[in-house]
């Protein structure tokens, strides 16, 4: 089982290598794309910050703290956008009838799908995330790092990326039935990222529970940042729960994986 995972990862690495080589052929194009996306995401970031032009804080959160929140959500999402690009264009694969080809190979169809694209231009969003982090820490002069906090932040970003990719996967699985992606899942990805840029506590109880226990995006942004800022976690959860982010993300990805396998099985039953 472990050797399977290792060989799948090495295959993924190779497939991505091909993608990167193809995209790097058009350097100028890439630079413009990255720059454009950086511009767009920075505008989104400023949109969040403009709120603070009129108000000093949002539910007790200052501008610097919200900047950290936005940065974390953005970073996680940016990673997912880059990695999950192949999943995003899955509807095209199905429509073109190219999925059969993937099933005819002795390797995991999922690895082939996720390895089919890697959007370097999403580096624009990651750059914006770095800028947001920088601005956040500048605005928080009293912030002290500890090894635990750094770990929590990194785990949080990784968890957010994993959860976003899983959402993309479930959206792609729907293509087996509807052939087109639906706006429903876009509201979870783009909408979710936007919502996670603000403190979770500003939302209705129901939404808070949704983003904690159904689509646990809050474990990728809000909870890690709470830990960083020594703030209490929602619903009076003990601070150590912040370390559980990866486990929560893992559980969610396993669900997405099961949905995907069910979709492939359905495809084999009905032949697209």
């Amino acid at each position, binding site marked *: 089982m472990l050797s399977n995972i290792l060989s799948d990862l090495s295959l993924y690495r190779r497939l991505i290598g*091909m993608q990167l*080589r193809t995209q790097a052929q058009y350097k100028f194009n890439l630079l413009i794309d990255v720059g454009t996306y950086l511009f767009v995401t920075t505008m989104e970031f400023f949109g969040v910050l403009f709120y603070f032009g009129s108000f000093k804080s949002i539910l007790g959160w200052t501008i610097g703290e919200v900047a950290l929140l936005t940065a974390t959500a953005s970073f996680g999402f940016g990673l997912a956008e880059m990695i999950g690009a192949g999943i995003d264009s899955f509807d095209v694969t199905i429509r073109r009838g190219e999925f059969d080809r993937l*099933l*005819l190979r002795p390797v995991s169809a999922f690895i082939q799908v996720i390895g089919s694209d890697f959007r370097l231009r999403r580096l624009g969003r990651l750059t914006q995330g770095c800028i947001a982090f920088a601005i956040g820490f500048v605005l928080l002069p009293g912030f002290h790092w500890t090894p635990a906090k750094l770990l929590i932040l990194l785990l949080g970003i990784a968890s957010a990326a994993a959860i976003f990719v899983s959402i993309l996967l479930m959206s792609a699985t729907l293509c087996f039935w509807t052939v087109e992606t639906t706006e429903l899942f876009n509201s979870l990805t783009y909408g979710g990222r936007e919502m996670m840029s603000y403190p979770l506590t500003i939302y209705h109880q129901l939404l808070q529970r949704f983003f904690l226990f159904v689509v646990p995006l809050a474990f990728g942004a809000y909870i890690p940042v709470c830990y960083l800022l020594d703030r209490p976690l929602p619903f009076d959860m003990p601070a150590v729960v912040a370390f559980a982010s990866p486990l929560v993300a893992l559980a969610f990805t396993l669900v997405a994986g099961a949905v995907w396998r069910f979709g492939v099985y359905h495809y084999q039953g009905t032949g697209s």
Partner: protein
Amino acid sequence: MTTMIEAEGLSKTFRVARRRPGLIGSLRSVFDPEVRVVPAVQDLSLNVGRGEMIGLVGPNGAGKSTTIKMLTGILVPSGGTMRVAGLNPVQQRRELASRIGVVFGQRSQLWWDLPLIDSLRLLRHLYRVPEARHSANLANLRALLELDEFMDTPVRQLSLGQRMRGDLAAALLHDPELLYLDEPTIGLDVVAKARVREFLLAINAERNVTVLLTTHDMDDVETLCPRMLIIDHGRKLYDGTVTAIRERFGGERMLIAILDPAEFAALARDGNGLPILGDLPAGVTIASADNPKIALSFRRDAIPAHELVAWLGARYRLRDVTFHEPEIEDVIRRIYEEGLLLAEAYV
């Protein structure tokens, strides 16, 4: 193991929702879909031995692609059993995938934007082929298919013939025991077709690769496949040799005789300019005449060939005599159009 494919009573039924026209119709279809049951393949049994080359022939929509999809594990059958290379295609799909190769005539499995060599190298990893074996195969296939001249060209810039050769190489790099070819010569020029056919005969002879070939080109079948399967309406109608089916359904044969030119010129002509041969046997007609050649078309069951030659020879001096068999194309067309075998299949 000498049997490559064993299929018994395979069937596949699709449930297709009928789309009603118009806006109201679309809404109705959401809540009350009218489902049509489409039997794509019915009760198909097949036995293929290792090293055989088999042609799969049938009109469009006959169920050929569906059958191949079931045999490769892409589709789950609605009924029947099958074993390919000793494996269950659906449950052991990935293991089976490393033992088969597939070439789609109309869709390439190569990466469109990258040079051919990159695709071939990447496939080593997708099929987990050891480096040494891959290099040896690649060198061998490069030579056989003459790939060197366009190895570094991006696949999207290749001509159809070149792309097909690339696809063939890609399908054989991992030494598959069984090769499925879906219309491999479609759209190719005469030279390219000949090359592909030569190549297939060579690998079948050298590596004992079992080949299952779907095609509409009867020349493919006649050149490559000692055995042919005809599939129509989801059923297997015929499983045997090309010659046997030609004999059974090829209605008419042609006798071409070279007469003495002087005798030919002396023949009386009818209204159409064709010579009149007195008291022709029943079932024989004059197809064409072009001094000194005359072509007589005769029904197989009307008169045996040697009797017709004797009859002609008794009346005219014959310089030379040859026979023309009916085109297998025409035979197949008759079978499709007249449903010649369908009646039997339902017995």
